[in-house]
Structures are given as structure tokens and as C-alpha cells.
């Protein structure tokens, strides 16, 4: 379908409150029944710099961020100069009348806001901008009024009333301006309830739904907000959330917590995860069900701390010395962040292995509308084994056909639960018996067969035999789907093959599609085509064409189409 979405871009310095404006507007749109995808671009600083909060919205599904701007909410003059080239014909700039836009605003449809008059107190500038924006979109003021009441509920009626007065003044003034921006089409009369979540919030909630009750972490952008979400809900849910002294401690703490009966998750980003690598190997050896969330940002080293990339697939695939099984999930959107995190816990628990959720800064910070989750439909994880069948003869690493041994929790029976990071016998104690070594390696790797059987097949969108097959993983799903729509509009048939689980790979699930494709193009947010290489390594299939982005910005449909121009 043709693109009917509009993009609102709020731009300004860090600390100007652009996220507040953006979040309230996005929530109002979602409540009104519109589709929303947010992308946030920010610099690694607390104040100053240039940050943006972009809302792409419409009645039809929106999959991904876009490079165009229909409404530019400029909280400073610089925003106009930086983004004027993205404005669509008919687009509009909302900016304070005091900004000097004599050069940067030339030829643009400007709505100059008399801020001093409409909101004499600087503290109300955000609500003023929100009101002008809401009115420009022809949105019902009631939605924003309700949101302001909720937002300022704890600050008392006086604060609420002051903010409502500014909002109403903004609406009234904007309506009198005849700015010429076309209203959005009206939303359905009775929109269903939908949640507004970003990827990291959805990961935290998916973990809670799986019974996660322990989270140890060391702050690192863009992974931190997973832990912060759990911390914010800890009073209600009882989750033990501990900020560790470093990432090494965070990962080892989680191993200890799981061995003692917890369900644990460790969120981090690439650099922090690099410090956890030895503990990943420990989890492999102790057969500890442990979920790591790795929110990717561009490296190497500190890289671009607040931007996005899909550069750490190899790191997560190979993290940890020695050979042991693992699974790696890569959610394609916010909704999948919830369900796949739940599944990550289920797989970790079933196969007693470390399991990874691989996300990135774009998805971590991208607010999207999500249908309410049906908790009753989620499979329940088995309760911890408190008392093994015969405590006297219990062996933590008993050899079994599938490699999975009953995992008792110490302290709840007279069984002794012994786990040694050295190679160990069935009862968990250090051994240098090399025959036992071979048995134990085989046992651990056998669990990998189970993980492979349980692997989620890649999702295919579109028909076999399409002119082009876009292959992608993780958050690249959205732009790939949109690129497919644009290609179909231009008369080319296109399909998308998306891997929401990137390890283990089961070639029976996808190889025929790759070899049968007229043109398979792998689209990734990294410089070397890590998934393409992995697929070649595992199946022998070699991609002829790659579309790769590694400038720190999220992949868009337009970026993919520009890449395809050189190929098709």
C-alpha cells in the first residue's frame, strides 16, 4: 500500500524535554487508534547537543522509521537548519517566534509560536509545544488533557490546572492561525486498548511474564532501561534487582542466583557483555539457565555509545571459551521483544543453557503500539525442583539421553547440589578422568540438539519466486517489510525472510527458499554481513548481494531501496 504515514520530528538540545513531548504525543496517537513507530536519536551527553524524537504515525501499519519529516517541532533554531531538507512538500515547521530563522527558515511553511505570550513560565514550554502540535494534527484536545492529568497527578491540582490552561491556549491559538497543514484522517471511533512500549520495556515485561525474579546489571546504554524497568516495577513484582560493581560481578551474581533457585536476566550492551564472557562460559559449564540481553550499539570499544548497529552477532555467537550450546533470539519489533524474551527463559530453563536476546539501540528506544498480551496463552515455566526423587543419590550432572539432568535447588532437601567449573563427574565434583570428560562434553552438546529442534523458523513475508528476497534479522524486519511494499508499488515482486532466532540455525527451515530465490539480498546493520557469513558457514549458501548500514542510524526502507538500486 502507498505510504500514507506522517512523520513528526521533535528536535532540540538534550534537557529541553523533547522526549516528554514526544512520548505524550505518541501515547495520545496510540490511544486515538493510530499506528506508531518512534525512533530516537541522541548524543552521549546530558545537556546540549542535538537530539531528536521522531514519531511515524498513520492509520495503516507503520513498520519502521522514515527519513522524511512532515511536522518539524523545533525547540531551537538549529533544528530547522539541520532537518529542513527532510521536510515534505506541505510540511510545516513549528517554532518559537523568537528564533532567528531568517536563513534556515526561508521558503518553509513556518508556524511561529508566540511562546512568551501563550506560556509566560518557561516550565510550560513543553506543554505549549505539545498543544500546538496536537492542534496542528487536528487531534481531540481531550486525549492530551487526560494524559496531562495522569502525568501531573502526583503534583496536585494546581499544577494540573496550569498545564491544562497552557494546553488550551495553545489549541485556541493554533486553530486561529490557518497554517494550512492537512489534518490526519480520523481514527476509528472505538479504538481497542493498546499498550505503548519500547523494546527494552517489552523485554523486561516478557521476562516478568516468564517468572524472572532476579536481575543483576551494570549500567550501560542502551541496555540499562531493561533493568530500570524491572526496578521500577520491583515493589509490585518482588523482583530482586541489584546494580553490581561491574559487569563481571553482574554476570557471576546471576549465575549464583540461578543456582540457588532464582530466574535471572542480565541486561547489558556490547562492551559490558565483553566483560561477561567468562561468566557465559561458566553458565555453559554449570548448565545454568540464564538469559542475557545484549542491546547493540556501534563498536569497537566505546564506539558510538547512543547509536544503533547489529554488529555484535558474532560476539554473542562465540562468547565464552570452550564448546557449549546456546540459543540467540533477535526480536523484529517491540511485540516480539516480549514474546521472545519469554521464550528465551523457557528455552534456557528447558535446555539448562545460556540464552541471548539480541536487540539494538533503535529497537530498545523505539516506542510502538502493541496489542495487549494474553498472559493465559503463554506456556508456564516448570517450578524449580526443590526435592529430587532420591536426595541421597542425587547427582546434579546425571548422564541422560538428551543431556538434560534434573536441576535441583540446594537447601530445600537433604540432597547436596554440587557444581564445579572444572570438568566434573556426574555428582559435580572436579575430575581429570578423560573418559568422563568425553561423556560430559557429549552430554552438554546433546542439549544443543534439543535447542536446534526447538528453534523458531524464520518468518517469510511474500510469495516464493519473487524478484527479490530480502533476508534480515532482528530490528531490520520493519524497514525490510516497508521496502517490500515500495518495491511492489514499483512493479517488482518482493519477499522478506526474517530470522527472529539466529542460533541455532536449522537449514531445513529456510535453505530451499534461499537457493530458490531469484535474487537473495541480505540486509544487515553492520559492515561485514555477519548473518550472511553465518548462513554460508552453516549451509554453504553464499549471498551475492548485501545491503549494509553501519553509520549508527537505523536502517530505513529508503536506505534499502538506495542499496538495491546498485544491485537490481
Amino acid at each position, binding site marked *: 500500500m502507498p505510504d500514507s504515514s506522517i512523520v513528526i520530528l521533535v528536535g532540540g538540545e538534550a534537557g529541553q524535554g523533547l522526549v516528554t513531548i514526544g512520548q505524550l504525543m505518541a501515547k495520545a496517537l496510540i490511544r486515538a487508534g493510530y499506528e506508531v513507530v518512534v525512533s530516537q536519536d541522541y548524543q552521549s551527553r546530558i545537556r546540549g547537543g542535538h537530539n531528536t524524537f521522531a514519531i511515524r504515525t498513520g492509520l495503516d501499519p507503520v513498520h519502521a522509521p522514515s527519513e522524511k519529516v512532515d511536522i518539524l517541532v523545533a525547540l531551537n533554531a538549529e533544528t530547522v537548519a539541520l532537518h529542513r531538507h527532510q521536510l515534505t512538500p506541505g510540511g510545516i515547521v513549528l517554532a518559537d517566534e523568537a528564533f532567528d530563522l531568517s536563513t534556515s527558515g526561508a521558503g518553509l511553511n513556518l508556524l511561529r509560536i508566540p511562546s512568551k505570550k501563550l506560556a509566560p513560565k518557561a516550565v510550560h514550554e513543553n506543554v505549549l509545544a505539545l498543544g500546538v502540535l496536537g492542534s496542528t494534527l487536528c487531534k481531540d484536545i481531550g486525549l492530551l488533557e487526560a494524559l496531562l492529568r495522569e502525568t501531573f497527578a502526583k503534583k496536585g491540582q494546581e499544577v494540573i490546572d496550569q498545564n491544562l490552561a497552557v494546553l488550551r491556549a495553545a489549541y485556541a491559538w493554533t486553530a486561529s492561525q490557518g497554517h494550512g497543514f492537512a489534518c490526519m484522517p480520523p481514527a476509528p471511533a472505538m479504538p481497542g486498548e493498546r*499498550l*505503548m512500549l519500547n523494546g527494552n520495556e517489552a523485554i523486561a*515485561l516478557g521476562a*516478568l*511474564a516468564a*517468572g524472572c*525474579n*532476579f536481575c*543483576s546489571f551494570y549500567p550501560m546504554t542502551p541496555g540499562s532501561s531493561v533493568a530500570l524497568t524491572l526496578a521500577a516495577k*520491583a*515493589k*509490585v*513484582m*518482588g*523482583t*530482586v*534487582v*541489584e546494580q553490581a*560493581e561491574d559487569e*563481571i*560481578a*553482574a554476570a*557471576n*551474581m*546471576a*549465575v*549464583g*542466583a*540461578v*543456582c*540457588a*533457585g*532464582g*530466574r535471572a536476566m542480565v541486561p547489558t550492551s556490547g562492551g559490558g557483555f565483553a566483560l561477561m564472557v*567468562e*561468566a557465559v562460559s*561458566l553458565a555453559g559449564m*554449570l548448565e545454568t539457565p540464564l538469559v542475557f540481553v545484549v542491546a547493540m550499539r556501534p563498536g569497537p570499544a566505546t564506539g558510538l555509545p547512543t547509536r544503533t548497529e547489529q554488529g555484535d552477532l558474532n560476539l554473542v555467537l562465540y562468547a565464552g571459551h570452550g564448546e557449549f550450546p546456546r540459543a540467540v533470539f533477535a526480536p523484529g519489533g517491540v511485540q516480539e521483544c516480549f514474546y521472545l524474551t519469554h521464550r528465551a527463559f523457557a528455552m534456557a530453563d528447558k535446555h539448562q543453557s545460556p540464552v541471548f536476546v539480541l536487540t539494538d539501540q533503535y529497537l530498545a528506544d523505539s516506542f510502538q503500539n502493541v496489542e495487549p498480551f494474553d*498472559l493465559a496463552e503463554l506456556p*508456564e515455566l516448570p*517450578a*524449580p525442583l*526443590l526435592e529430587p526423587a532420591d*536426595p541421597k543419590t542425587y547427582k546434579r550432572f546425571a548422564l541422560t539421553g538428551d543431556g538434560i539432568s534434573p536441576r535441583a*535447588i*540446594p*537447601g*530445600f*532437601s*537433604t*540432597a*547436596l*547440589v*554440587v*557444581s*564445579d*567449573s*572444572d570438568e566434573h563427574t556426574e555428582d*559435580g565434583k*572436579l575430575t581429570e578422568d578423560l573418559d568422563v570428560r568425553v561423556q560430559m562434553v557429549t552430554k552438554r552438546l546433546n542439549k544443543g540438539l534439543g535447542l536446534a529442534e526447538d528453534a523458531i523458523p524464520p518468518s517469510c513475508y511474500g510469495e516464493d519466486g519473487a524478484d527479490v528476497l530480502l533476508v534480515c534479522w532482528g530490528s531490520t524486519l520493519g524497514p525490510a517489510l516497508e521496502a517490500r511494499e515500495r518495491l511492489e508499488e514499483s512493479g517488482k515482486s518482493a519477499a522478506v525472510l526474517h530470522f527472529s532466532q539466529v542460533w541455532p540455525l536449522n537449514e531445513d527451515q529456510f535453505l530451499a527458499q534461499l537457493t530458490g530465490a531469484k535474487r537473495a539480498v541480505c540486509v544487515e546493520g553492520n559492515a561485514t554481513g555477519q548473518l550472511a557469513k553465518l548462513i554460508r558457514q552453516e549451509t554453504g549458501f553464499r549471498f551475492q548481494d548485501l545491503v549494509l548500514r553501519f553509520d549508527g542510524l537505523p536502517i530505513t526502507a529508503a536506505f534499502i531501496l538506495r542499496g538495491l538500486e546498485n544491485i537490481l
Partner: protein
Amino acid sequence: MASSTVTAEDYGTFDTAWCPGCGNHPLLKCMKQALAGLGLAPHQVLMVTGIGQAAKAPLYMNCNMITGLHGRGLPAATGAKLANPELTVITECGDGCNYGEGGNHFLAAIRRNVDMTLIVHDNGIYGLTKGQASPTTAKGQVTKAQPFGQPSEAFNPMAVAVAMNAGFVARGFSGEPEHLVGLIQQAVRHKGFSVVDVFQPCVSFNNVNTFAWYKQRCRKISPEHDPADQEKALALALEFGESIPIGVLYKSGRAAFGADLPTLKRGPLALRQLDKAALQGVLRSYL
């Protein structure tokens, strides 16, 4: 939970990989006696260790055990104790593990004050890797890796712990087993983080800090010492020369970690069930 019928024999007897004459042998015996004396049965105890000759100690007694990574015993123990506050959690490993590789965890454990015990086998040398300097090796001591003498100043764990207002700080000597059993028992009973640094000679790789060296220097702290007096405790901790005080140096009286944490009051994590109603409420807060 404590039982008076537990004996040191319940903790079993095992062959060890330690050298004859190693200070680890009497220390292991003291651990078993101390735990049995406290009425703790093997299944009530979780030993969490790092890597090293000392860290093998729990292999030679019946108990629950996590042998983790070098230097990372304390964080794993912290996680385990937070997951099940009813377990008796003890970390036992060497000076390299705790003061070198895991130094940051040692500082954090003192600050956090989780109700668990750290027993450090302090022999002033790396045994498992065959004789390099450890953080407690004296400045100037010659080893294979430090042929010109250890160039760095030794770490003083007792002084650091007292200065950081640790919950319970004690030093023992494997050559004073009865005294040591008492220290271990007080440490385990202490509500909060307790550390016992135990001198024990490495007969293979440390020819300076021998049994005789320690025997000559260790003197028991006088019963008049008030362990609540931080200044005096620090003075004792800094006394490290011809005479070295052993015994309880300091008890700060700090409340243990989590006393005021609502999330820990709900009991062991293994017994918790997902509160779907509460989760539903959390989900609705995102509408």
C-alpha cells in the same frame, strides 16, 4: 534449623590434592568442626569458591557447592544469598582470588554487607600457578616471577576492611586451630558480611612466610579489646611485623544488606510464584 546432632564426620573425609604440610589441611578440619559445632547440616550450607588451591577446599567436604571463576566467588555467593536468604553461604578461596582478581568484589562485598562469610586462605603466594607473588606477598620478596623482588607494596585486607567499616573483621592462623574454629563460628553467626583472613603456610612456594614465621609472630588479641572501636581496630590491623594480632579485630554493628528491601522479604526465589494479577496491573500501566 540448626541441629545439635551434626558432627564433623557428617562433612566426610576425602583425599586431597594438597601438599603434605599445607596449611589448607588444618583449615579444612577447622571448617568442618566449626560448621558442625554450629549445628549446620551439610545440606544447609552452600560453599561458593573461585579458583586456586584454597578454592578446592569444599570439594573435600560434604556440602552444596558452586566452584565458579577465579576471583568471582563473592559475586556468585552474593547472588545465591539474595536468591535464598535461608542458606548459610560461605565463600572460601585464596588471597589471589579475593584480593587480586576479585579485589573490586571484595570492596563491594564490604559495602553491600550481605549476610555471608568470606574465609580467605592467606599464604602470601600463588600456589596453584606455582609460586608467583600474590597481593599479600611482602614488598621485596623474590619469586620466580618477581626475580628482583616483589616491587609493589602488599595489600592489607584487614586495614581496608576496618577502614571501610566492614561488619565483621577477623584474622586467624591455621596453626591455632581451636582459636580459628571460634573465629569461623563467630563469623558465620554474624548477621552481615564477615571476613576471616587465615594465615596458612604454603610449604612448596613460600619460603618466607613459613609455619615458624607465622607461629613466631601471631599473638591473640587481648580480651580487653573492644571490637566496636574502629580506631583501635585499625591500629591492630596495621600491626604487621614482628608481632601480628589474630582474633576479632572489628565489628561495626551495621545492619545486613536487605533489612529494608521489600523485594527480599518475600522469601527464597525458588518458592515464589508468578503473581499474574500484579503483572496484569503492570501491563495496564502502559495503556
